């Protein structure tokens, strides 16, 4: 039946059905093409975004993990550690790092890499967040034009990152002390910078330090600013007593540098970056005015110089103008004495404006001029004297002072070194005066005084004995009688005595009498006529009331 209908239908010419399947069949292939395009684009993207591959060597791989440890700059991930291996000689660890494409600047030669781990040091605690998150590698891009793919990692974070605002300065010092990288730099006890690096100077006779002062405080560094080592506690025991000085608690432990401009700086200019400065040992020497050239003088003392030490001050009229540099013994053949020879350096420039005037008068500062100047001063009585600076510690200092009573001495202008005449020290003078006093005391006739005194004392003793034996018993008797008399008197006045009672009754009588008299005067004042007429009967009702005083 179906065959029949089918054949019937086929006889009728109909519109042929045109299939368009062929087109849609190929349309399905768009799916794998799209997939392939997506895949390809991802490959291209990863190929384009793949950054440089670098190797950084570290001392240890502690905390580093391949494919886990990140490389961060300002806490932004810029790469990943993809592999950790030992170097060929097994002394180093090489970490292979794949940086992001955007991290290209981190391949410049002076880029720094370091491992950020938790650190506890004298100058603080850092990297606490890495306790949980694990270590990461910190990076800091450099400025060099050269690029490389091999780096040596730092063992500790660099104290200053590139691009931080501020200025670098160089300091030169004799020894490093307790300074270290990262030691703070203080300005008026506020931390404004830190030590970045240090190294021996090329000739090995000193240390060159590099410090960094953060902006805006770098504007306080002038070309005449003085830097000094503020490490530890500065205890000075000198002629001026005991002095303890320190910058801060952390500088005691970690060391530190302090700086300040001198007290009077009329035309100071801002210091340039990378300027060189000297690093002084302490604040006092740093802030002292420039010394200028030194002159060597010698003094000969005929006394013990116990308490005089090297570096003891030399003062001229109270102004410290130099220091003792040598103390020597000499032997004088003629007198068979051992005089002490003290050498000292004096800095004429420390005299300030006096020095300038002297320069104007005597000409330029040189040995010849100093000799002539000294000669004139000595003629006016200039003498050196070892004086006690501190009675407690017994420290001595050398004082150059004018002594008008001093004997004239001959001064050799041509002699080198220049020799300053001396007078005995203040203690020596004191000793002489004491001696004189002792002499005077010894002249007093103590023996005869004692004899006289002894006789007087004996006389006095006798007198007292007589007094005790004769006078004292009589006084006792007299006192006894007096006491008895007083007792009797007090009995008479006691409450129970009949005299007292009689006296009381007498007083009552007197009182009653006084009352009657008052009543009478009252009555009379109201009824004066009664004096003449007598008392009227009706007035008896008047309100008087005579109260009897209660009987005792």
């Amino acid at each position, binding site marked *: 039946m179906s065959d029949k209908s*089918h054949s019937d239908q086929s006889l009728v010419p109909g519109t042929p059905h045109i299939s368009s*399947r062929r087109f849609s069949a190929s349309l399905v292939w768009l799916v*794998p093409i799209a*997939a*392939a395009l*997506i895949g390809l684009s991802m490959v291209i993207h990863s190929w384009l975004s793949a950054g440089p591959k670098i190797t950084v060597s570290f001392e240890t791989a502690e905390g580093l993990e391949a494919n886990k440890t990140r490389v961060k700059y300002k806490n932004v991930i810029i790469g990943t550690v993809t592999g950790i291996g030992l170097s060929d000689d097994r002394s180093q660890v090489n970490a292979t790092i794949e940086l992001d494409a955007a991290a290209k600047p981190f391949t410049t030669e002076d880029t720094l890499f370091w491992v950020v781990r938790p650190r506890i040091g004298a100058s603080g605690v850092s990297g606490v967040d890495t306790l*949980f998150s694990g270590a990461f590698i910190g990076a800091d891009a450099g400025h060099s034009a050269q690029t490389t793919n091999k780096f040596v990692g730092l063992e500790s974070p660099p104290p200053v990152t590139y691009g931080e605002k501020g200025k670098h300065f160089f300091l030169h010092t004799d020894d490093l002390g307790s300074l270290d990288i990262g030691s703070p730099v203080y300005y008026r006890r506020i931390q404004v910078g830190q030590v970045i690096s240090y190294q021996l100077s090329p000739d090995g006779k000193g240390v060159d330090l590099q410090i960094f002062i953060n902006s805006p405080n770098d504007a306080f560094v002038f070309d005449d600013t003085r830097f000094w080592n503020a490490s530890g506690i500065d205890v000075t025991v000198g002629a001026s007593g005991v002095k303890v000085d320190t910058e801060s608690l952390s500088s005691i432990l970690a060391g530190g540098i302090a700086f300040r401009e001198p007290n009077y700086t009329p035309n100071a200019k801002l210091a340039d970056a990378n300027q060189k400065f000297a690093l002084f040992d302490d604040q006092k020497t740093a802030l002292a005015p420039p010394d200028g050239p030194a002159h060597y003088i010698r003094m000969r003392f005929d006394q013990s110089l116990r308490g005089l030490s090297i570096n003891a001050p030399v003062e001229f009229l109270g102004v410290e103008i130099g220091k003792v540099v040598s103390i020597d013994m000499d032997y004088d053949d003629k007198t068979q004495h051992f005089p002490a020879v003290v050498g000292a350096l004096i800095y004429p420039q420390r005299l300030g404006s006096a020095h300038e005037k002297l320069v104007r008068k005597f000409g330029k500062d040189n040995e010849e001029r100093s000799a002539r100047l000294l000669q004139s001063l000595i003629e006016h009585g200039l003498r050196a004297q070892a004086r006690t600076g501190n009675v407690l510690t017994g420290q001595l200092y050398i004082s150059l002072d004018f002594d008008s009573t001093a004997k004239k001495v001959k001064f050799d202008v041509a002699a080198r070194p220049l020799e300053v005449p001396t007078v005995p020290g203040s203690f020596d003078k004191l000793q002489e005066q004491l001696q004189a006093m002792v002499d005077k005391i010894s002249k007093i006739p103590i023996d005869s005084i004692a004899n006289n005194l002894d006789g007087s004392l004996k006389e006095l003793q006798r007198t007292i004995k007589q007094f005790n034996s004769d006078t004292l018993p009589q006084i006792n008797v007299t006192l006894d009688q007096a006491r008895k008399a007083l007792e009797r008197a007090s009995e008479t006045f006691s409450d129970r005595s009949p005299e007292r009672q009689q006296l009381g009754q007498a007083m009552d009588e007197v009182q009653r009498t006084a009352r009657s008299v008052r009543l009478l005067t009252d009555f009379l004042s109201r009824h004066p006529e009664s004096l003449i007429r007598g008392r009227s009967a009706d007035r008896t009702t008047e309100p008087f009331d005579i109260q009897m005083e209660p009987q005792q």
Partner: protein
Amino acid sequence: MNLPPYASELQLCLCHTCGYACPVDAHRCPRCDSMIHRRKPDSISRTWAFLVASLIFYIPANLLPVMFTDILGHGSENTIMSGVLEFWEAGSWDIALVIFIASVVVPCMKFSLLALLLITCQRRSRWAMRERSRLFRFVELVGYWSMLDVLVVALVAALVQFRALSTIEPRLGILFFGLVVVLTMFAAMSFDPRLIWDAEVDDVR
């Protein structure tokens, strides 16, 4: 031959939608008015297309990380295989095995089985036709179990959000893996198992 007659011999074809046996020259099913074809149209080329697409996507699905876990600030990204290895090394071999079967064995098996079916059909091979059709039913059955991975990542990422303590986030790899699963299912759907038996007769298509 005592085989039952083929529909084509009887000038009949089956409606895909309602299963009505329609005359061969009809364009639409007389009962449900859907398009009728003797076989699924372009079955082999469509299956190939989906299969190739899913194969392409399978590469990024395995290379890209599927999950980002951040526990106490210690973040890490895991691909499928690295996750399997991590579980295996941690000693939980059973979990590693489940993940491995669901995300590696099943998709790979589907690729190879579908490719085998397609090639044998194209070559009109008469080899093990009954077993091959059984294989196809197996492929269809096992197909959606590969979505296990996608589900696990979606669930875990939604549940584990404790800010600083721990967070889990899905990564791009899981999207590709989901696409792989969907595309292989499309491939299996567009394959017409009757093509296996068409090898018995020469004049089909």
